[in-house]
């Protein structure tokens, strides 16, 4: 759990994830969540996407983009519930839920990118 010894580790993950999320996620969501579905750009076909994702650089990129921002989310969302909604009595549950999502997401990303 979070205490004086482990807090710097969690904060470092939060900070690193914040940088990755700030730099990489907007263009990611803009491309595949808005521009491609709305037809603003010509999205790569299935085979082109497969080719792109097979490259080791893309896989490494996707692993970084999927793992660190989840730890950023875990830290920030935990404190949103703590400060914003004042759910202090559920502290352990909230902690397990937030970091559980981050760990499961990271493992899933590593597995999927290794299998592809």
């Amino acid at each position, binding site marked *: 759990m979070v205490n004086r010894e482990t807090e710097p580790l969690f904060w470092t993950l939060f900070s690193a*994830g*914040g*940088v990755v*999320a*700030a*730099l*990489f*996620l*907007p*263009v*990611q*969501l*803009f*491309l*595949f*969540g*808005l521009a*491609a*579905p*709305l037809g603003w*750009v*010509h*999205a*790569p*076909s*299935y*085979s*082109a*996407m*497969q*080719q*792109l*994702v097979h490259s080791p650089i893309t896989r490494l990129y*996707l692993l970084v*983009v*999927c793992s660190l*921002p*989840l730890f*950023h*989310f875990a830290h*920030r*969302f935990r*404190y*949103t519930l703590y*400060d*914003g*909604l*004042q759910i202090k009595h559920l502290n352990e549950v909230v902690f397990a839920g937030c970091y559980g*999502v981050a760990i499961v*997401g990271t493992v*899933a*990303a590593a597995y*999927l*990118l290794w*299998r*592809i």
Partner: protein
Amino acid sequence: MSRAGQAQAAASQPAIPASAQSAISPVYTEFHPRWYRPPVSTYWWLGKSAYVKFILRELSSVAVAWTVALVLVQVLALIRGQSAYLQFERRMSSPWMIAINIVAFAFLLLHSITWFNLAPKAMAVRVGGRRVPGVFISGPQYLAWITISAIVFAIVISRG
């Protein structure tokens, strides 16, 4: 009571009464004052625009998790094959999905902008004893943001 009797009584009783002793003891005080803390409403942050901005900034983390989830679903669809990927593309163009993604994109922009603007406040860089102005710390980050976005955009579009 005789003098001897008085002395005996004084010896059997402690010199300081128990109640007074507990008040003196640094370990335990019987009547510790409890600090009065008025209960704070769950909606405390609705009163002031700065607080609302703070909560929105904190909630941007949900958009971050959402975007990562979409990337994972997209990779999973790529593994499952062409029909699964076409289905993924169809789902992404449903009106509900577009609406959610517009909101999520706005939150991601809020996160990026507040993050870059916060960096100079978190890092006090000093050169020659003088603090470097914030523009020189957040400026390069905005530049990196634009450059990275352009590169990722160009790589994906060039395959389209």
